[in-house]
């Protein structure tokens, strides 16, 4: 298994990365409470609105900074990129879509895998980037996830996955579907090794990702108001032909219905994860 050292400083890309919820410029309007926020202030607040606690969508870079001690990590399997085994073409060929995504996001796939530590506890950490083809899961995500578990078992460290995904990637069709089986089977190996798996669910986590590794945490932690679903709200609405109740499929809804252990503010995420890990992963008495 290849171990790759981080090749560049990662710290400051956040402010220039464009997403629909993080517009460029000095000022940002909170889409929920309409408060006008100075961008630096938002960043200092870990991309949550100081007024209404709206959690802005962020990427792997930001999460590594937020969760890992000193923002230091070693990245693994960073050179894996998608192939096109099916020759998939919709309105454009899949390789073009991938090339566009790579150019637009400066990422190579929708998941990154790193090792680092959280309050001095060594961890293997995976994080998804929704900006990369909707955070969709194809063969590379499945393979990175699997290698992460191999590292966790080899080094006897806990595994943490931060999900943000529209689900399985259509352009890899049945192969994407099989990544659900692959990742879940690998989690069974991790469980046999008695290593903790913490699933952090962020906005949005839907489809095949929810229906595989995102729901399988020993502890499932959701960010406030994150959309977490199997079928997206629009599909459900079309099915039942009724308006959905407010808060449906949001983090708090999952907590209420028993599918998340807790809803945790991004500012408390690191200490919460550390606390859980200490409770589960310290040497037994």
């Amino acid at each position, binding site marked *: 298994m*290849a171990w790759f050292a981080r090749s560049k400083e990662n710290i400051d890309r956040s402010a220039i990365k464009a997403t629909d919820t993080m517009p460029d410029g000095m000022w940002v309007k909170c889409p929920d409470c309409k408060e006008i926020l100075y961008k630096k202030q938002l960043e200092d607040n870990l991309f949550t609105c100081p007024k209404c606690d709206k959690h802005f969508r962020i990427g792997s870079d930001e999460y590594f900074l937020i969760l890992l001690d000193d923002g230091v990590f070693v990245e693994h399997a960073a*050179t*894996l*990129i*998608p*192939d*096109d*085994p*099916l020759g*998939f*073409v*919709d*309105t454009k060929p899949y390789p073009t879509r991938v090339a566009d995504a790579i150019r637009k996001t400066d990422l190579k796939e929708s998941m990154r895998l790193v090792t680092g530590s959280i309050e001095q506890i060594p961890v293997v950490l995976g994080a998804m980037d929704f900006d990369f083809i909707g955070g969709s899961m*194809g*063969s*590379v995500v*499945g*393979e990175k996830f699997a290698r992460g578990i191999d590292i966790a078992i080899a080094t006897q460290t806990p595994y943490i996955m931060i999900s943000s995904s529209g689900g*399985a*990637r*259509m352009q*890899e*069709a*049945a*192969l*994407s*579907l*099989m990544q*659900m*089986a*692959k990742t*879940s*089977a*690998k*989690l*069974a*190996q991790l469980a046999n090794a008695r290593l903790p798996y913490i699933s952090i669910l962020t906005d949005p986590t839907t489809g*095949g990702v*929810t*229906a*595989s*590794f*995102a*729901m*399988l945490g020993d502890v499932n932690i959701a960010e406030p108001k994150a959309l977490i*679903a*199997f*079928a997206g709200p629009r*599909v*459900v609405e079309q*099915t*039942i032909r*009724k308006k*959905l109740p407010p808060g*449906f*499929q949001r983090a708090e*809804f999952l907590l209420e*219905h*028993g*599918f998340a252990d807790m809803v945790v503010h991004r500012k408390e995420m690191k200490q919460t994860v550390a606390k859980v890990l200490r409770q589960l992963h310290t040497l037994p008495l």
Partner: protein
Amino acid sequence: MAATALEFEKPITDLEAKIEEMRSLGESVDLSEEILMMEQKVEVLRQEIFENLTRWQRVQLARHPERPYTLDYVNTLTPDFTELHGDRGVHDDPAIVGGFGTIEGIGSVLFVGHQKGRDTKQNVYRNFGMPNPEGYRKALRLFKLAEKFRRPVICLLDTPGAFPGLEAEERGQAEAIARNLFEMSKLEVPIIIVVIGEGASGGALGIGVGDRVLMLENSWYSVISPESCSSILWRSWGFKEQAAEALKLTAPDLLSIGVIDRIVPEPLGGAHRDPDQMFATLRDVLVEEITALRTTEEFEHGKALERRVKKFSKMGYWKDEN
């Protein structure tokens, strides 16, 4: 035999109608030679059409209203199928059926499968074969029973998808499917999966992790239905044929990329044209598969997870820039 004809079968049914017409004339004139010729022509045409099916045509065959469903197979393959009900939590989900039955030459096995309805009333009852979380949880309860009593598991997949309803979401559709993937990957008995009709996405995979994955010749299996794929990627419902082509969702496609292990041949014209032949073929295949699994060294107790990780880890393609 008046099976509902699909649109692409029209040239065949047209000829068949002509033959019928000639037969009725035959009472006054002798047309037996012409009829014989025409019948041969029909067979040639049928061969030709079914050897060159497009992917979308196979999808239509997989959805044929007269196609055999799970209970048709189970009740024919076992003389003593005993259906077991309920997830022991919320209720019984009729979209997934399961129970034990005896196959000659193998003994008692657990069957679990999606169940569609034959008419409107049945389809409402079966929810068109779209399970709720309770269906997956019932399946898991039965898998555990099979493990406890060391019985092989046979899963028959035939669903347009897990039900995307409000209560399904409320009761954890995603968790129910995820849990099954996790548990099935380590179940200590042989599991054989057969896609008998539609294998739509997580709703199918939710009872679809096993040691051998088979597909009937005219079934389909993918991450999404061609219609939904069309609506998302083309932003229109009108590209389902193209979507079916792009998704490479047929049995030969999936065999070639290593997602499935074997194709089970169907009678000419599809499983519904000769159900008895279909049942006999599948029975032989299952006996062969289970017998082989039982005698493989790899299949000793305690190695289930290892062999399934190995199997599913191989699925995927990527490039390494290094």
